[in-house]
């Protein structure tokens, strides 16, 4: 009997000890996750803060203040269009209260970014590396931003990538934007959006819903603008002369059908036809007409690009050289629209007469 009692008591004690250990372990693990997260954010902040600057400038509405960051050791600065696009008298404040002037190199209102050049910088200016485009940025990837909110000092914010959006409230962006659940405040326009390795994945350009989240222009779009500037000294969006519509008869997983081509436009010279289903433009796969908007952002006038289409159950690849987009509303000499795919033969006959 005594033995039985002793056995029961020891079993109960062991069970309690196990429970206590288990609970304590869980709590310890929970603490370690938060600590680990905090440690990583702190590391990114310490590593990258030297490259983030406060940009003060003037425009026709007065004095403005935003954030920017160096993207190379020669003092090239990246910021948002609202901060640098239409401003002058730039003063860049680096870490350690070093102030210097800067000038505007190029600005693109479509993308919402501006590139500046700082003067008289000390040697070995810290800069932030750009993430490789193929690095596989995905939803729920943790991101950090470092910026100057209002008149406060350099501040880190942490969040997750919430999505990749091409439109917001019924209107389309020029290219896909990163939506991140990073809280932002005024003054943080032009700040870098960094992954946990301290690489730039985007540039913050706007808030969403009073600053609870933000939109950032992805680094691929930034590089396109930067590349255009280095090669041509200006942004050169390309134009092929294709009008796309959505089709219910999806070919090879794409619903983006060529509805119309312009005579003498680069697309028709390349061999594209109405009713072709677009599968790929450059390196960007197409599954819907909306993808075409994103892909067309990366076209550069004068630079050949490949276009993959689905035609008569075959996948065909064409090479097209985009031209500069004609001015909106201006008539293109000698150009008429090719009949649309929805036009009947009777319509075409009537037009020819």
């Amino acid at each position, binding site marked *: 009997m005594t033995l039985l009692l002793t056995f029961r008591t020891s079993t109960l004690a062991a069970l309690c000890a196990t429970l206590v250990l288990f609970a304590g372990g869980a709590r310890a693990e929970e603490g370690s996750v938060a600590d680990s997260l905090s440690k990583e954010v702190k590391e990114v902040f310490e590593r990258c803060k030297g490259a983030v600057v406060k940009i*003060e400038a*003037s*425009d*026709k*509405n*007065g*004095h*403005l*203040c*935003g954030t920017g960051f160096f993207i190379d050791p020669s003092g090239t600065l990246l910021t*948002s*269009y*609202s*901060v640098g*696009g*239409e401003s002058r008298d730039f003063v860049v404040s680096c870490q350690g209260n070093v102030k210097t002037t800067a000038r505007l190199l190029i600005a693109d*209102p*479509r993308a*919402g970014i501006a590139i500046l050049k700082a003067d008289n910088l000390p040697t070995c200016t810290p800069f932030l590396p750009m993430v490789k485009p193929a690095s596989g940025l995905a939803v729920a990837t943790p991101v950090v931003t470092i910026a100057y*909110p*209002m*008149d406060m000092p350099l501040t880190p914010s942490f969040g997750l990538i919430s999505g990749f959006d091409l*439109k*917001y*409230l*019924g*209107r*389309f*962006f*020029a290219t896909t*934007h990163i939506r991140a659940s990073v809280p*932002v*405040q*005024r*003054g*943080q*326009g*032009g700040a870098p959006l960094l992954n946990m390795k301290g690489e730039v994945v985007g540039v*913050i*350009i*706007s*808030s*969403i819903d009073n*600053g609870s989240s933000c*939109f950032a*222009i992805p680094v691929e779009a930034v590089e396109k603008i930067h590349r255009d500037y280095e090669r041509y000294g200006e942004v050169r969006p390309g*134009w092929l002369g*294709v*009008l*796309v*519509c959505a089709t219910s008869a999806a070919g090879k997983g794409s619903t*983006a059908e060529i509805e119309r081509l312009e005579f003498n436009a680069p697309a028709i010279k390349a061999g594209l036809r109405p009713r072709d289903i677009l599968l790929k*433009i450059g390196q960007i796969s197409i599954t819907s*007409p*909306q993808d*075409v*908007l994103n*892909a*067309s952002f990366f*076209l550069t006038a004068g630079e050949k690009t490949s276009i993959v289409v689905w035609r008569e159950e075959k996948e065909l690849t064409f090479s097209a050289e985009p031209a500069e987009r004609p001015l909106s509303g201006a008539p293109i000499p000698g150009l008429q629209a090719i009949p649309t795919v929805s036009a009947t033969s009777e319509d075409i006959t009537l037009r020819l007469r």
Partner: protein
Amino acid sequence: MPLDDQTLSKLLRLKRHEQPPPGYFEDFLKEYQYRQRAELLRRPAWRIALDRWEAFTEGLTLARFTYGTASVAVLCLAGALTYNMLEHPGSSVRTSAVTLAQSATVGKPAQVMQVATATQFEEGSRGSSLTPQIRIPDALLNQPTVTGSQHPRYILDARPVSYDPPFDF
């Protein structure tokens, strides 16, 4: 021709049976006032005004030069204001705008910055109606001493630049 007694008696007999038209006495007062007003309006307006002014001042006890002095002062003030407005058109608007901006900047800086940011974004969006329809006068925005030195506009757009394009490229 003087009337003799006989002729006058005959005329009186004859007139005794005359009656005014129906409603004559009812309209008599109205007709009288109408004619009186018509007679009055034959005179120039300044003369009427002067008469009225004289009638008004007769009932007052202050010395006449007092009213004259007050009238001259009012005329001088009106002249000075008119000259100021012609020399500096919109000055009164600007003054009120600066006052508004100063009070807003001191009291609620955040709201001023929000408006400025939204306006700038609207301009940055190349004329498309993307932003809240907030407009503040240029006179207010161009005051460097108000928004420039004390509180710069801290930039962060309310929404990205967006378009409503056809799907062409």
